[in-house]
């Protein structure tokens, strides 16, 4: 019975460890090969699916949304790259990236008026108008626009969705820092489209200084218009909350 001591044993141990290490990297290579094969098989499956259902994705917003949700559950982003399988074979990429371009253009065109803050419904309407009159062009859903906006975030222009108390969404397309106070003001304005310093004091219980600070900031950012014609005092209007003119 030999006991594992001495130089011999240490060397043997080192050798064994080295062998295990090699085995480990060999396994990774094998796995890469396996993945490559699986990818080829998957590509064939996807081609078949595309042949049958590519049109369904283009024409049916419900199906499109289901597709997106299923991809999300397994941790796959079909819109990550125009070079991805999903984009190339199903055409989902072109569909959503084009909406992205249209969203940016609409936001740029209206920025001088609303400072970079507009309601999601207004954005959707305007995007549909940009797309033209054909029925197919109109089949863009709210879900489609929201997903396109999420993708635009990484371009650094501050694309963000704000959820108001009544469930509506506002789209911000400029990188202004909107903190909780600003969102509270937005919520207070949502019924009428405007607020006053007094309204903020009454409805939110804020001190005058705090209200002034927040409103000055919003004026600076160009997100509100000042209206001194009302007898009761200065009103601040949010063009982003106007009904569409």
């Amino acid at each position, binding site marked *: 019975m030999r006991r594992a001591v001495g130089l011999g044993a240490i060397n043997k141990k080192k050798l064994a460890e080295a062998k295990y*290490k090699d085995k*480990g*990297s060999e*396994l*990774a*290579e094998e*796995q*890469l090969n*396996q*993945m*490559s094969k*699986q*990818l080829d*098989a*998957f590509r064939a*499956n*996807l081609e078949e*699916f595309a042949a*049958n*259902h590519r049109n*369904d994705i283009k024409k*049916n917003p419900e*199906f499109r949304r*289901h*597709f997106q949700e*299923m*991809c999300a*559950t*397994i*941790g*796959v*982003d*079909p*819109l*990550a*790259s*125009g*070079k*991805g*399988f*999903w*984009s190339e074979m199903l055409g989902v*990429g*072109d569909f959503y*990236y*084009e909406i*992205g*371009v249209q969203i*940016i*253009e609409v936001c*740029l065109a209206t920025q001088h008026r609303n400072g970079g803050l507009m309601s999601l419904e207004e954005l959707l309407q305007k995007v549909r108008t940009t797309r033209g009159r054909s029925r197919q062009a109109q089949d863009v859903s709210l879900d489609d626009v929201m997903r396109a906006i999420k*993708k*635009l*975030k*990484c*371009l*650094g*222009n*501050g694309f963000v969705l704000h959820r108001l108390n009544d469930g509506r969404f506002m789209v911000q397309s400029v*990188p202004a820092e909107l903190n909780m106070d600003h969102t509270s003001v937005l919520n207070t304005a949502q019924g009428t489209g405007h607020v006053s310093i007094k309204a903020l004091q009454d409805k939110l219980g804020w001190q005058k200084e705090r209200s002034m600070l927040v409103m000055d900031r919003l004026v600076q950012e160009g997100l509100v218009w000042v209206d001194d014609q009302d007898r009761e005092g200065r009103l601040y209007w949010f063009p982003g909350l106007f009904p569409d003119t």
Partner: protein
Amino acid sequence: MDRFEWSDGKLKEGETVIKQQGGVKISDGPEKTNFENGLAQLTHSRLIWRSPQNQQSIVCLHLSLVLFVEEMSDGRGKSPKLVLHLQSPRANQPKGPVYSSQHTHIRLGFKEGGANDFNRCLSEVLARKVWEFAPVSRPANQPRKIHAGIVGIERNLEKQRKETDQNISKAFQDLDKLIGKAKEMVELSKKISTKIKDKQGEISEDETVKFKSYLLSLGINDPVTHETHGKGLKYHEELAKQLVAVLQEPIEENGGMMALTDVFCRVNRARGIELLSPDDLLDACKQFSRLRLPLRLRIFSSGVAVLESISKGEDEKVFEAATLLEEF
């Protein structure tokens, strides 16, 4: 089993067999019956079972009596069974092989296999409940079908709607299958990614790049491999060079700087098809400095991202202005 009725096996008008399977036996709850090894046929409204020996021995079950279906494995290598849970029999239940049964379910055994397929078809038919829409069968001496006029149009629309429904439900099914396959690869990629993280240097750089391209194809975002500085994907390198070729002049004319959203719109409008994703654009721009291209990506503290011309950018302009001032 008392919900079954004797049948002459003839299909009703408009009824078609969606799926059939041989070697099927019916059990009344857990109890065996004589109805073994027959041909089970599934239509939109009924389940018909035909005996192999006796042509007259045919029973059928109206699908409106089926509450739901589940699969039951019989263990010990036996073929799986389908359990059909049934509603209580109707008062006017026509005569069937069994007068009354204490069981509320029947089981179908599939000696020759096909349980899964049959279950899938059965579940689909049950979901659509076509018998609720089925027209009442006409007695023989009514006028012939109306193809023209409002009724004809309505009938066509209804037919189209049903076809679309069928197509869409098939689309959903195909999609679920496809996603299932994608899921396997996501799992595999996670394993590989962990390996790469644990032993940097054991995997060659080429293999890492190969792996990155697989992830790109599938749309998997892997933070471990995504941010590695160094060799990027060939796709992004090529893209970077293309972008510079297209954008250098417009950017210099625009004052040496252009917002990334602006770049995104211009590039995609020019391409028309095979558009770039925002991530593609960003990843390509990140390669500029490594490839020593004359444009650079600059991100301000506010988060705004711009592409800047190296020779005509902000710093250079400031330098130029300062030099000019000094000369005075």
